[in-house]
């Protein structure tokens, strides 16, 4: 069980949180203009990295606030927790590439 440092409440056990899937998946501006393929890409295709993955989590049994997390999917190391609407800042993370991959 992970220990997660909620930006609002501090360190709590994972069982107080819910994982909301991959972060930085932006809802398309005009879904009606998308092809079926493009829409299904938004709905279903995730990067599912073996390595550092950017996710969003909610402190459900606490402050109920959402935040982003960079987590290593093999070691489960939590590399960074950062606010919604921002990008991670740690070294070695090519955020642009990650985000591009998600949006591709």
């Amino acid at each position: 069980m992970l220990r997660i440092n909620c930006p609002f409440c501090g360190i709590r056990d994972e069982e107080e949180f819910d994982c909301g899937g991959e972060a930085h998946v932006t809802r398309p501006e005009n879904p009606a203009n998308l092809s079926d393929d493009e829409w299904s890409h938004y709905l279903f295709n995730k990067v599912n990295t073996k390595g550092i993955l950017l996710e969003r989590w909610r402190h459900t049994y606490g402050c109920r606030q959402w935040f982003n997390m960079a987590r290593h999917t093999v070691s489960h190391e939590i590399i960074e927790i950062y606010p919604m609407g921002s990008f991670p800042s740690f070294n070695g993370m090519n955020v642009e590439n990650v985000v591009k991959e998600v949006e591709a």
Partner: protein
Amino acid sequence: MNLSKQINPLDRVTNAHRVNPAKPISFKFDGKTYVGCEGDTLASALLANDVTVVGRSFKLHRPRGLMSAGIEESNALIQLESGSGYDEPNARATLIPLYEGLNAKGQNSWPNVNRDVFSVLSLFHRMFPASFYYKSMMWPSWHFYEGLVRKMAGLGKLPELPDKQHYEKQNIHCDVLICGGGASGLAATLALAHTDKKVLLVDAQEEFGGSLLGENRSIGSQSGLEWVENTLSQLQAAPNVTMLSRTMISGYYDQNFLVGSQRVTNHLGRSNENKKIRERLLRIRAEHVVLATGAIERPLVFPNNDRPGIMLASGVQCYLNRYGVKAGQRAVVVCNNDNAYRVAFDMANAGVDVAALIDTRASVNGPFQSKIKEMGIPLYAGTMIRKVHGRRKVKAVSIAAHNGDGHLGKTIKTIECDLVAMSAGWTPTIHLYSQAGGQLSFNDELKCFVPNRCDQNISVIGAANGRFHLEECLTDGLHVVPKTLGTTVNPELNISACDEFAEEPSEAYWYTKNENSEKQWLDFQYDVKVSDIELANRENFLSIEHVKRFTTNGMSVDQGKTSNVNALAVMAELCGKKIEQVGTTKFRPPYHPVTIGAFAGRDIRENYSPRLEMPAHQWHVANGAHMEDMGGWQRPEYYLQSGEAEEDAIRREVLAVRHSVGMFDGSPLGKIEVKGPDAAAFLNRIYVNNVESLKTGFARYGLMCNENGVVMDDGVFVRLSDDHFLLHTTSSGASRISLWMEEWLQCEWPNLQVVICNATTQWANVTVSGPKARDVVALLASDIDFSRESFPHMQVRIGTVNGVDARVLRASFTGEISYEISVPARYGQGLWEAIYKAGEAYGITPYGIESLLVLRTEKGYLHIGVDTDGTTNPLDLGWGRAIAKKEVDFIGRRSLSRPNDTRDDRFQFVGIEVVNPSDSLPVGGHFVNSANPIIPVKTMGYVTSSYYSPNLDKCIGLGLVEGASARAGEETFVYSNGKTIAVKLVQPSHFDSKGERLNG
């Protein structure tokens, strides 16, 4: 030679370390009474009573004796205290401390382990190779055989009575968790005593000391036992050290979170019934974990190596030294390493006739060999057991020259014996390390897997790290651990010289290659033999994980503690690979089974989940309500009057609502307040409906979809003011929907100025419904004009009712005139009583959920999650036209234009009538196209709701049916449980389909 011994179970070896024969304890095994003594385990007591058969193997029902003295035991599985409310199946006799009156039964046999009628199966062992379930029992189907196989092959019996014991959970945080209180674990704890580290030492056994309790070792000038006792007294004085014996760590999870089970009072047996906590589940978070989990001895693999009387050498040694029990009178030791020689020394010193030391190694000539010769024990170097004589107990072994690499020559000698102590070397206990994500590497010299790399804060010391010698264990604990943790090494803690001698290298002896592989056991419990690995190899199973599943090796209750390495070594030999190339299977929790009760802790029965009572709960209970748990809420299903059956009550309530007036406690109805300048714009994206056009004071019935276009929830939403909405959701959906809306706001549209509050429990709600509803509410003290003209259907009013603030909504789930009156929750019962009093003149009838469901089914009103499933979209509910009118996007809209979402033959919402009024309509029954369908047949949809309608005097229902929107009036069939009935598809609304009664 007569090997049968005169049995006095209290006649123990003098100087036995840990038993007190002066304190006898009586117990029962398989119905017979025996006596053991204080300090015994069930296993040592059985051995002292010369009980040689303690269990039966899983598949072949072979008679089995004790194999070990510890957690690795795979034969002596016991059903403890059967039928008492204290039952424990699959308990290891080796881990059960003896207590007065203990009642145990052998498992997997009938009538008992001694006379097991199913043992006839072992005559047909060729019929039961690996995978026989998958291959042989395919025709006509597995279910044909299942009953028989389950009866024969059960591992223990599920307790039938409720557990009488109490359990609890505890969270523990510590700086260092040390798992294992043997030599290395005790040394590590000693090294950290009086530092600033908060240390927790746990050990699974009844007492600390580990293998030292079963050996005769010396540490400096002290005996091993004296060292343990001195160390413990120092640790007890250390304020920073907590020690828990009887505590098994069974799971190692992320970020050093470990779960263990402390068997607090199991050793007291049934005398503890209903008193103290039996087991405590420990949830431990440690900054650093030290695994000092020791090692497990491996069996040698040779024909009939599973016969009673053949034991692990370490087990024989432990029974002898710790419990003072001789496992036999005339023993042979068979091994490929020097360590097992110590067992021969101990036996000879205790007066056991050691008839032979059989060593697979041809040229060995070190201190151990010299000492064996000195003691007059015949040493047969370069030999191996080729044959075992005796079925229910070993009588003799025939030995042959070992020509190297598991190949044996002809029998050269037969040696009578009643005990074989075997050792193929040691396997570090790395289960927890593997669970922690640790990678292993194979050590060629030690011939075992040792820890290599792990991402967690963990260190592995002593035998668990392949450091098998006592001095290495002490060094790891006293010096390595403090260095790893950066604490100062206590200079007073020197490593005393132990009784170590130079050892000859061990040799690999994985199995006997030129003997019958069908008789060489690997996994004793599941009857996996070398021949099964051969079969897996022939069938080209390459991955060791597949070999495990195919052969079931290591899948038994003991999880392969003794069999794993042997099996993968056999696999490696067969496919010509190195052992490290074959690799290991990953260990998963639990290391050792944990009682389910411990996981449940106190969260059982009424404490399982919070119990929600409505504000007028007391009134309902006092007035005959039949309460039912619905989504956590205690809700009346119906109100019973004297002499009524359930269906009478429902009929009376339904008719009252249709003909006069009823009242319903709707307090659990989901109420979410949404407020802010952007509230309307936000909700317009959330609802399928148009929200922005709703005027203040008006209400609208709405649907919500998820982004995949599937209907999630429904309910009436209300505009209280320009920037303030009240959303009604299903009772079970309130929390889910408010969290879901929060997610959109926080993650997707943080710029929208909207706040959300789930106000469900803050408001009590009483719904007055029926043709006389208006007459009743008009009698209430209120500043609201309830008249037909000024307060029409689907509008809301804010005012006071019965002297308190109230919101009144005209919406209806019954089809009758309805007023849903909400007041702050604490006034709920007062409102309920005021309405009941006002309605007395009209015979107002409280109605429950069951009656409401009949009423809404008559009206064809949707019940989300009942009349819809995980595929239903708004188009399936007939919302196509309404959606077409909405000009802007909403969640899920794009999904509704995908080809699959617009198919004509989707399952669509429809009303159902039975053709023959005497038929009843089964919920879950499937639509078929023929009165005589040939099963299996493709489903054309299914019945989702069905009730007897007192107003229509027949069975009516709702369902999801293929292409239903174009099939109104069509007759078709419903199939359920072998019966087909004729039905007619109709519009969902069965009653007052024009909705004229709503306005009255």
